[in-house]
């Protein structure tokens, strides 16, 4: 199976999840595990790499997790997604979730 890896980093009260690989529904357990480790984190940044690839079903999983976190009072932002990610987010009406935060 194609790989998706995550790495969690704490910095100044912000929890960063570095995402690396192919985001699809099949490899979403890596994201599930990352979100399960967030605990009481208040501010969460999801950081993609320029060359990460995405399938729409993977974004569906991602946004389900983001919505779950936000319902628990956690603030989630997606940092500087590549243009192809941003286009997809805009198309599905989820662009506000990745607005305004830059590296």
């Amino acid at each position, binding site marked *: 199976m*194609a790989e998706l890896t995550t790495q969690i980093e704490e910095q100044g009260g912000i929890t960063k999840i570095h995402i690396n690989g192919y985001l*699809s529904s099949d490899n979403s357990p890596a994201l599930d595990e990352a979100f399960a480790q967030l605990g009481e984190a208040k501010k969460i940044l999801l950081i993609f790499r320029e060359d990460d690839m995405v399938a729409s079903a993977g974004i569906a999983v991602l946004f389900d997790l983001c919505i779950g976190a936000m319902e628990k009072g956690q603030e989630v932002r997606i940092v500087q997604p590549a243009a192809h990610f941003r286009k997809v987010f805009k198309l599905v009406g989820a662009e506000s979730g990745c607005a305004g935060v830059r590296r």
Partner: protein
Amino acid sequence: MTNDVDLYLPMIPDMELTASKTAEAVGDFMGLEHGKIQEIKVALIEACINAIEHSGEGRLGINFEMGDDELTIVISDQGQGFDISQVKKDIDARRERGEKMRGWGMMIIEEMMDRVTFDTGDHGTTITMTKRR
């Protein structure tokens, strides 16, 4: 002048990545901008996943036609096909209900590419999509 690359893939998970890697190699060969190659890869991944999920039999044929000014990709399967107008109605209905994800493959393909046509029926589905240089 045109050059073609033909790829035939089994209908099994993750084959979309093989297609996308081929698209990257073809795009690099043509000297396309990196951002355009990324968009082509996203569109191709969606097209392949749709074929794998909704056709599920036979194999997937992908033809890359490298033109002087554009790249045309033809994705063909031998599945049962689908009603495009009904799919679009379903997507509109989901939007009206505020559902944000699932079933967006066709829309994403159209957004990422410059021209897209769908030919579908009992004989299978062919998606022809073009990206200008």
